[in-house]
């Protein structure tokens, strides 16, 4: 009998595809964000408000993950930007291969911004890298403010916490200060925004955050090659 050390990632194959996606996004100067939350925390509504604020020339697209139905994709397609639904047929999260397949029909050189709306679930999506620049976790005020401590994996991995539905704060026991404190215990230095997609209070902060991230991607992307010249590599 022999014991053979392996020292490999269990999700090696997912991570390999995610790394390829990340390299392609970087090459095309695309900012890719992966939205994760419990079902009903307001991922689709925040995306609706975000798309609504863009001019028709904006080079943005959305991949929406759900177990069944294309309801979210239909809601998001109203704004005229490319939207594709990924139905996982039962799986509780998106993986990198689903994203790779969904992107196959799109030209990445026509995009600057890609939102991935993950399946509503605070647990499973945490472990699957989709090649995104950042995960954004959304926590609505109708949930418990201790969720960061109960589901630390996603709060540890997400760069931004969006506290959503703040218009309901007068009616619910949610304590924003304790939610912030819990999130920062799990993930010191985590960025936190509060907003209401319904009343638009706080949306400016979200747009500013998004613009800053997009600026950073633009600064890191080499200028596109002169179309008159052919380049190798």
């Amino acid at each position: 009998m022999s014991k053979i050390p392996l020292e490999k990632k269990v999700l090696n194959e997912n991570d390999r595809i995610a790394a390829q996606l990340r390299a392609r996004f970087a090459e095309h100067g695309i900012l890719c964000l992966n939205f994760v939350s419990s079902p009903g925390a307001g991922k689709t509504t925040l995306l609706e408000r975000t798309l609504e604020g863009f001019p028709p020339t904006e080079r943005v697209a959305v991949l929406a993950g759900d177990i069944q139905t294309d309801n979210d994709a239909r809601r998001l397609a109203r704004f005229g930007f490319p939207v594709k639904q990924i139905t996982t047929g039962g799986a509780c999260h998106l993986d990198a291969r689903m994203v790779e397949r969904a992107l196959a029909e799109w030209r990445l050189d026509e995009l600057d911004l890609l939102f991935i709306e993950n399946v509503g679930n605070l647990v499973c999506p945490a472990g699957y890298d989709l090649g995104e620049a950042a995960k954004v976790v959304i926590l609505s005020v109708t949930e418990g403010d201790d969720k960061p401590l109960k589901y630390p994996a996603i709060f540890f991995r997400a760069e931004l916490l969006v506290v959503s539905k703040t218009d309901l704060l007068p009616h619910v026991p949610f304590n924003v200060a304790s939610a912030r404190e819990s999130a920062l215990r799990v993930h010191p230095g985590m960025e936190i925004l509060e907003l209401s997609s319904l009343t638009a209070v706080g949306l400016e902060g979200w747009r500013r955050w998004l613009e800053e991230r997009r600026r950073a991607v633009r600064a890191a992307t080499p200028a596109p090659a002169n179309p008159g010249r052919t380049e190798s590599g």
Partner: protein
Amino acid sequence: MHELSIANSILEAARAEALRRPGARLLKVGVRVGELSGVQPDALSFSFEALVRGSDLEPLALEIEACPRRQRCPECGREFEVHDFDITCPGCGEERTRCISGDELDLAYIEIEES
């Protein structure tokens, strides 16, 4: 309940490793599961057993090493285990310490019997 797909990934990886050693029989797979990995060790064991039962890999065993979160202090260099999310350095009191492990989901080893 993504532990089922995680268990499946573990089995596929173990099978691939075993195939590289013709004639070898897989006895055990060892994995390391960090507390920040989002994977529940009990659910993972349950899923793994369900997948192995009745398959050609039976009676393959799974050993899970649960890994706590560990931080390193940038001031005094101390490395320590985190309890109850308290990441303050127990040596010098520095609050801004850096996470060095606890989010792993690694295939650590396989045990095989060579014929």
